[in-house]
């Protein structure tokens, strides 16, 4: 298919359909409402279901119900809405159901503002809801990658029977870029007869499946958590995604950034290069599992004086970068989170100051 010009939010909606998702439940919130608007028109055309919940709390449980019944399902929201869904996310992870959540982040805390932010890194990678669970978190840096990651998310969610989050921000949701929808990213739905409440007549089985997150027996609950932990370890082994940019040469500084912020850093790195200054970028595409070894190894490059994490937050991913670099190189931080995105010139200035 030829390229078309799409807004990130529309493209995410179309990508879900191309990935075989026919169930979408959501509640409007700026800056992601166009996903709901787009899918409210498109899903009926392809025999799918769009349902606006009465709140994000309800939407979260609609996803639990649909995924528990073995259906591909997605919701999209923005930061405050994801907070409201976090209880259901914990239940879905606990009950080992596949579901896709998209967070088009806006400024916070609380109502914050409607402009882009990366303030939900901790929420996405370290919890949000209660209990020992992790989401697999994908972080696109533009509209094309948002399409690809949304399409991949359904397969990954089923591979691990775990909720997957695609974490963009208001800029990714609102900006327009040329996109295409690669057919090869569509995965066939897995057979869910072993665990889903998908109807005994359809699966012609006598086995009764119960989708639940309640385990009252202590030994059983401990074992359940050990099983979940094993899945997270498997994610770390098999599904880490990252990019290194301008990292082949003798760089003096390693910039860690993701999503929209990495676009600015990429421009800054190109402009620095034109001035004869070599900076490299480490960009995690999965925020969980975090590319631990890759950032460690990139930081240890002999010519690299220091690492800086640059974020549209007050310092969240930097904690993972520090953890992985293990004190072997200095790890600095720069962030802004009012909604204005730091300029490439600002990043250049910071880099020059650090490398002297």
């Amino acid at each position: 298919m030829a390229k078309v010009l799409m807004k990130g939010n529309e493209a995410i909606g179309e990508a879900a359909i191309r990935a075989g998702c026919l169930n979408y439940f959501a509640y409007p919130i700026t800056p992601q409402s166009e996903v709901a608007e787009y899918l409210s028109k498109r899903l009926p055309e392809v025999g799918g279901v769009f349902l606006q919940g009465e709140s994000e709390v309800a939407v979260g449980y609609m996803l639990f119900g649909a995924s528990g019944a073995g259906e591909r399902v997605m919701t999209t929201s923005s930061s405050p809405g994801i907070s409201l869904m976090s209880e259901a996310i914990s239940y879905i992870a606990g009950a080992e159901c596949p579901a896709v959540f998209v967070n088009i982040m806006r400024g916070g805390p609380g109502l914050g503002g409607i402009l882009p932010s990366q303030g939900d890194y901790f929420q996405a990678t370290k919890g949000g809801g209660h209990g020992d669970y992790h989401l697999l978190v994908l972080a696109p840096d533009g509209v094309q990658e948002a399409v690809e990651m949304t399409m991949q998310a359904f397969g990954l969610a089923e591979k691990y029977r775990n909720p997957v989050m695609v974490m963009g921000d208001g800029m990714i949701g609102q900006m327009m870029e040329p996109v295409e929808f690669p057919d090869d990213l569509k995965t066939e739905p897995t057979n869910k007869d072993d665990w889903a409440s998908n109807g005994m007549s359809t699966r012609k089985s006598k086995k009764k499946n119960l989708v639940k997150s309640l385990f009252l027996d202590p030994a059983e609950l401990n074992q359940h958590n050990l099983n979940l932990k094993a899945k997270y370890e498997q994610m770390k082994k098999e599904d880490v995604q990252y990019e290194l940019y301008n990292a082949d040469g003798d760089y003096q500084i390693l910039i860690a950034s993701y999503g929209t912020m990495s676009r600015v850093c990429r421009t800054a790195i190109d402009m620095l290069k034109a001035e004869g200054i070599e900076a490299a970028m480490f960009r995690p595409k999965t925020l969980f599992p975090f590319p631990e070894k890759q950032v460690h190894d990139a930081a240890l490059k002999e010519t690299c004086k220091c690492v800086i994490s640059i974020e549209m937050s007050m310092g969240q991913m930097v904690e993972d970068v520090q953890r992985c670099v293990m004190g072997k190189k200095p790890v600095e931080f720069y962030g802004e989170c009012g909604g204005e995105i730091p300029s490439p010139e600002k990043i250049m200035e910071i880099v020059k100051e650090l490398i002297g």
Partner: protein
Amino acid sequence: MLPDISGIIIIAGNYGSGKSETAVNLAAVSRKSGKSVKITDLDLVNPYFRSREAKKPLEDLGVEVVLPGRKYMHADLPILTPAVADMIKNPADVTILDAGGDAAGVTVLAALEDVLEKSHVKLLQVINPLRPNTCDVQGCLKIKAQIEATAKLPVTGLISNANLLDETTPQIIYDGYNLVTRVSEATGLNIEFITASTRLLPQLATERIFCPILPIDRFLALPWTRN
């Protein structure tokens, strides 16, 4: 040939057709040709990339930019400042109203019905065939009907804004011109102008295009793009 349009001009079109970039560039070109220009951002639908973001460069050119108060600039609230009605009653040589996308985006025009019906306004439909809903004549006509029903005004002219941002080629511009030509034949509406980025202008075979061309300099570019 540059567009030479005067009067009250409403820029409408489907969502993401490039109305704001077109409106802002039309304002700049008109001002540079010596006309007095006023522009307002009536986009009550889109939260980002609205023509209001070009306020400073337009004001530097001498264009009067009519907007809600500064503290509401980043609110997703449907604020229609009374200054807009005043601007229609006291127009400049060129007075541009940049509406929001789709039918929802022109709903605001119904609120201005009283002042608009006393003025002779041009309602121009911007078409980018590389957007999903306007890739053919039928799609463009459907959007036209929706805009007219909601705005309670007839579309009076067409604009082709065929582009794939930085990946635009001359062929994309020719294809867009062909599509609006067919929409023009189907509706009897005039093609007011087509757009082309200043980067592509030297590559265009302008003898193939029988209408004015508005050169586009991106005022609403992504914050990390640099030349």
